[in-house]
């Protein structure tokens, strides 16, 4: 349905996006993950026709959208990171304005406004000015405004940043519903791995303007299929123990966590007895340990060397 072919954007000397190949099939929900400055927003701006690529192409159903963006604009709903609304207008007035300029037919517009307000749970507050809303409510109206013209593809750029849990859950449920019940294609970027895990069938991981990995959750987790993760709780912190574990042949990484340490080792290396010995040597007691399944967060860390919120 929608694909990018070697999509690149250079600002002066800096390459913000570097030859990205992505695709979205109809009805799919795709996540776009990456740390700050990875190039996610620039990619979204190019896909949504707001920014002209330096090179490469964006195709909708096989047709390039670069020269004539009107086709993609018709089928695209974009929820930007910012609250792209008029704060001085009410939720209803905002939606009416955007509905009109989306050229939603007059007789349908009123119905559509009520539908999207119902979707985002703000039907009762529609007459209130946006500036009086909480951050979460504003983000919900922000989503509603992108849905007025019934887009086939919805792009959401970190729609849950800085909001209360209630609004966050509401937004996630709304997006899930849109994808599952109406077959809307979703491209979702977020800092929250669990949101992407919950919502998306496939994930693209970006870093330094490039896609460093992509695939379904299981495909991405298989990247870490050669590793075991052990979470260990210790009686006290010990630098010599940390160094001793790092020096073990089967150990790939050791991280300090709030609970103790996290050891990533070669799959099937059975280092537990070595760990116990090492602890005894420095007179440290292992209070608790647990073998962990790798998460997408681990995959992200493995690929980019940093956490999502870095």
């Amino acid at each position, binding site marked *: 349905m929608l694909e990018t072919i070697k999509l690149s954007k250079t600002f002066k000397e800096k390459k913000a996006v570097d030859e990205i190949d992505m695709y979205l099939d109809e009805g799919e929900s795709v996540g776009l993950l990456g740390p700050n400055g990875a190039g996610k927003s620039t990619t979204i701006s190019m896909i*949504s*026709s*707001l*920014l*002209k690529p330096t090179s490469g192409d964006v195709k909708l159903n096989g047709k390039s959208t670069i020269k004539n*963006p*009107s086709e993609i*604009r*018709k089928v*695209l709903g*974009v929820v*930007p*990171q*910012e*609250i*792209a*609304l*008029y704060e*001085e*207008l009410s939720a209803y*007035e905002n939606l009416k*304005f*955007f509905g*009109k*300029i*989306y*050229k939603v037919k007059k007789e349908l517009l009123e119905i559509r406004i009520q539908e999207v307000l119902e979707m985002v749970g703000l039907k009762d507050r529609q007459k209130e*000015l946006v500036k009086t809303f909480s951050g979460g409510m504003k983000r919900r109206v922000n989503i509603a*405004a*992108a849905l007025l*013209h019934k887009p086939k593809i919805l792009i959401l750029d970190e729609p849950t940043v800085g909001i209360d849990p209630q609004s966050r859950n509401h937004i996630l449920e709304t997006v899930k519903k849109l994808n599952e019940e109406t077959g809307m294609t979703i491209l979702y970027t977020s800092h929250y791995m669990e949101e992407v895990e919950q919502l998306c069938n496939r994930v693209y991981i970006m870093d330094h303007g490039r896609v460093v990995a992509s695939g379904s959750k299981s495909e991405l987790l298989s990247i870490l299929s050669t590793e075991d993760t052990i979470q260990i709780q210790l009686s006290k912190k010990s630098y010599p123990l940390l160094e001793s574990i790092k020096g073990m042949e089967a150990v790939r990484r050791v991280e300090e966590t709030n609970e103790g340490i996290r050891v990533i080792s070669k799959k099937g290396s059975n280092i537990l007895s070595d760990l116990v010995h090492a602890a005894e040597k420095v007179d440290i007691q292992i209070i608790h340990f647990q073998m962990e399944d790798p998460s997408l967060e681990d995959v992200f860390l493995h690929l980019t060397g940093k956490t999502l919120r870095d």
Partner: protein
Amino acid sequence: MGSFLKKDLLVFWRDRKEVLIALLLPIILIVVLNVALSGLFTDDGESMDIQVGIVEEDNSLEGLERFEEAVNEMDLDQAEKEAILQQTSVFNPSEMIISFFDNPEIKQVIHTKNVSEAEAVELVEEGDLHAFVRIPEGFTYAILSSIMLDEEADVALSIQAEEQSNELNTLQNMMNNFIESINLELALGTIAEGEAQEPLLPQGGREVIEGVETYSFTQYITIAMSTLFALFMAQTLAMKTVTEKRERVFNRIILTGSHPFHYLMGKTLATFILSWLQIIITFTISQLLFDVFPDKSLEFWIGLLIVITAFALTISGLTALFTSITLNLQDTNAASGIFSLIIMSMAVLGGNFTPIQILPAFLQRIGEWTPNGLSLTVILEWIQLNNSGNLVIPMGILFGYFIVFLMLGMAIFPGRGRN
């Protein structure tokens, strides 16, 4: 386009601070300036008591006879001679000066006594007179020969005083205005009509030209402040684009596939309506408070409305241009600075702070070509002359400005979001 217009009007209306600034500030300034400064522009001669001696050395009858003889001796046909004499029969320079001082309104300020030159000098020296006016011998003949026969006058009216004073300045100004009004009368040929019209005399320092009304300080300040704040309206509306750009509302608008013309025209029309209303409200309240335009005809008000409408249209064009500049500039502070600079320059040159007559001639010419300067001048002329013919060209120029600004705005409007 209607949606954009409605949105822009609503956004402006909901910003109470902007509304208050746009509507209240010009009115407050008009009130304050009227109270604080009107004294500077009104005649302070009423409280003056100027003592002036009249030294009349001229015998006007002799002068007239001498002039008649001179005309008869000239190599002209009889009809021409009669025409000249007919014109001079109603023009007696010495008598006009005497009757100027006899005018009851002038008498409230200037008190005269006929004295000889020696007495006058003595009284001035003693401080009993502020000055004396000397009508020299042969004055009537010299002035008539100068005006009618284009001969060089060898005598002139003189004012003599011991020292500079406000009284002397006032006397000089009044006399100058009086002489200028006579010169104008003669230039216009009204005296030549032979209808024995008495020239209107200057009143308390105001220059009064027959058929021409003067404008008051209150009128000036009302027009100047209204047009100034209408200029700011262009900036205010254009700067709303900054918020739209910063908060990505503009991107959302682009994504709807709306034509840039609609966006731009929404702002343009909103500015037109708001600046028009702003000027009308300011004029209305000033009229109610100060009776700025007393006893004016319906024709006057219609003319005023036409000028205001044309000016509001120009302002709206300026908004279109400012909006496009804002969208093109990365630094919105720079945009704001540029607009402020443009508007303040226009205000200074156009006479919104002080009458442009105090500016050097080349700046005056530039000022008259600014939309605000042009509108100000046209309205002041409309007050004075009430000649609808004077409105046509300036209105055309203002409309031309609107078209040019709008076209420029459209030409530099960023291309549909892709950059």
